[in-house]
């Protein structure tokens, strides 16, 4: 008789928990003196018994407000932090043991921490990775050429890193992280501070790497567009818990089906101006001076915009999805309610 066993996921976590201990100190001189004489320690739960499974080849976004626990989760998965509790397996390894065979199969890119030496060209750091990951000269040359071409940085690999722009540096960081062809790529805010062009390049590069190499990608970002552009699945965290695990579009539609419209007119909006609610599809959020804010259903967005244009000469018009922080707040207030 044959038994059917599920293939191991790239990441499997069960009850994963992390607590931090820190000393609390009241503000001011008196607080500082009291802290010297009698120190008070507090414990904070950063990640609270999360269960998680990510399959090979998936691109998963980890979303959440500041302090939600997403970076802590990423650090536990990459082996930087010891979990305080629970079980964690990544590619069959326990990350906190930081075994060499494990570290050769993963990569972590932190938007605000550089893996490159700043005072010498990026190629010096790449050559170091060649030794660390034991790449043959052929593998190394092929990887450098392929990645440099995909990221369009052929002309930058021999330039002192401190002389390149932020966006260019991020591309070089990604190159360094991918030279050894990791099976899992952890990305922490990969597009933070980048301009529109660099952001688009990085996103298309990550899509390409996932498609051609089958690299599993787990990324955190505050940028909703990053997640929308890259992730087939999102995990939304708050207060150390995963509040949602699934498709982002579905989440947005289920919580806030509408779009936000912000119209700024050349003159103040006259008192008593009537906005047709289009059978309940339009809701006025705010009228203040020259600014009108509406929430409109996706299906009637075009009708609502025509109405907005007819109200007077416009200076600015902004149509956006609901802010992710609002969605997260709403999601968690529903849970706790």
């Amino acid at each position, binding site marked *: 008789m044959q038994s059917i066993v599920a293939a191991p996921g790239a990441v499997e976590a069960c009850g994963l928990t992390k607590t*931090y201990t820190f000393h609390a100190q009241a503000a001011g001189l008196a607080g500082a003196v009291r802290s010297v004489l009698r120190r008070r320690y507090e414990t904070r739960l950063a990640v609270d018994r999360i269960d998680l499974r990510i399959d090979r080849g998936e691109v998963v976004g980890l979303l959440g407000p500041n302090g939600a626990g997403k*970076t802590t989760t990423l*650090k536990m998965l*990459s*082996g*930087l*932090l*010891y979990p305080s509790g629970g079980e964690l397996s990544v590619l069959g390894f326990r990350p906190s043991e*930081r075994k*060499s065979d494990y*570290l*050769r199969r*993963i*990569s*972590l890119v*932190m*938007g*605000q*921490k*550089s*893996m490159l*030496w700043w*005072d*010498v060209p990026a190629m*010096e*750091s790449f*050559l*170091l*990775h060649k*030794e*660390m*990951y*034991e790449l043959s000269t052929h593998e190394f040359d092929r990887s450098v050429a392929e990645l440099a071409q995909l990221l369009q940085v052929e002309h930058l690999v021999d330039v*002192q890193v401190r002389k390149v722009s932020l966006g260019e540096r991020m591309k070089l960081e990604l190159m360094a992280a991918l030279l050894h062809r990791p099976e899992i790529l952890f990305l*922490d*805010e990969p597009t933070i501070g980048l301009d529109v062009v660099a952001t688009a390049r990085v996103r298309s590069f990550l899509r390409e790497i996932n498609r051609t190499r089958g690299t599993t990608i787990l990324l955190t970002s505050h940028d909703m567009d990053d997640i929308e552009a890259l992730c087939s699945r999102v995990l939304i965290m708050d207060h150390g818990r995963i509040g949602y695990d699934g498709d982002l579009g579905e989440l947005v539609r289920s919580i806030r089906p509408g779009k936000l419209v912000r119209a700024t007119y050349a003159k103040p909006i006259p008192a008593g101006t009537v906005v047709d609610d289009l059978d309940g599809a339009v809701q006025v959020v705010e009228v203040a001076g020259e600014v009108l804010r509406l929430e409109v259903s996706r299906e009637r967005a075009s009708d609502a915009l025509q109405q907005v244009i007819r109200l007077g000469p416009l200076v600015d018009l902004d149509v956006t999805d609901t802010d992710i922080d609002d969605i997260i707040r709403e999601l968690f207030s529903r849970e706790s309610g």
Partner: protein
Amino acid sequence: MSRKGVKIARELRILRRMTAANIAMNLVYRANFAMFMVSNIAIPVISLLVWRAALASGARLPVGKEYLTTYFVILSFVTMATSSWMAPFLSEDIRLGKLSIWMIRPASMLHESIANNLAEKALKAAMLIPMVGVMWLLFADAVRVPGNGVRWLLFAVSTVLGAVLVFVLDVIIGALAFWLDDTSGINRARTLILGLLSGAIVPLALMPHWSQGFMRMQPFRFTVSFPVEILAGHLPAHDIAVGFGVQLGYVLAVCLLARRIWSAGLRSYSAVGA
């Protein structure tokens, strides 16, 4: 080659690449480097001049002009060769979470510090040795070193062990940042204690008579003074043998301690920042 041999060969290749990169980085800032060199040799030269002036004005010291001159000429090289500056940098890397960038790569996190130490010393030696040579020539009348090659070999081995001792002590002090938010006070104390008890500022032979027993056995003597004494102090063979035993013992003890502290520290590492 055995599995262990392959691993060591790989570690050495990584270290060589890192040392080369560190030499390249140091050469970027030439003026800064030259200033470091001048400050390195300044303390032994000034100390030598002060002690010679004291002798010339009739001070009664337990050692003579030849001992002092030879001591400080040799010292100017040994202090550089055994120096380490990593403790504050390591503390900062731990405190600000910069250690993370090395922890996620398959190599020891201390490679970078070792490479930085070796690279700077290689460059410093290239500049310092001619300066020590000039100092030697200037005070040639009072420099007395043994012509015996074995003594020079023992001096070299002892200097390397001294360098390891200082470096590992720095690892221990730097690693305290895993538990303490601010280690600058400890770093300052380390600089003061090491300066005084290693013999880098005042030869240990000039310390009070009643403290000589302690001075001979305390660990800091073996970071600087002991190698210098091998050449300048005409130590008898028995004292050299005992000294090597104690020095080796200290090296092994701090290595074991550092290993325990480091692995306990990693469990407490909070990887601050994104």
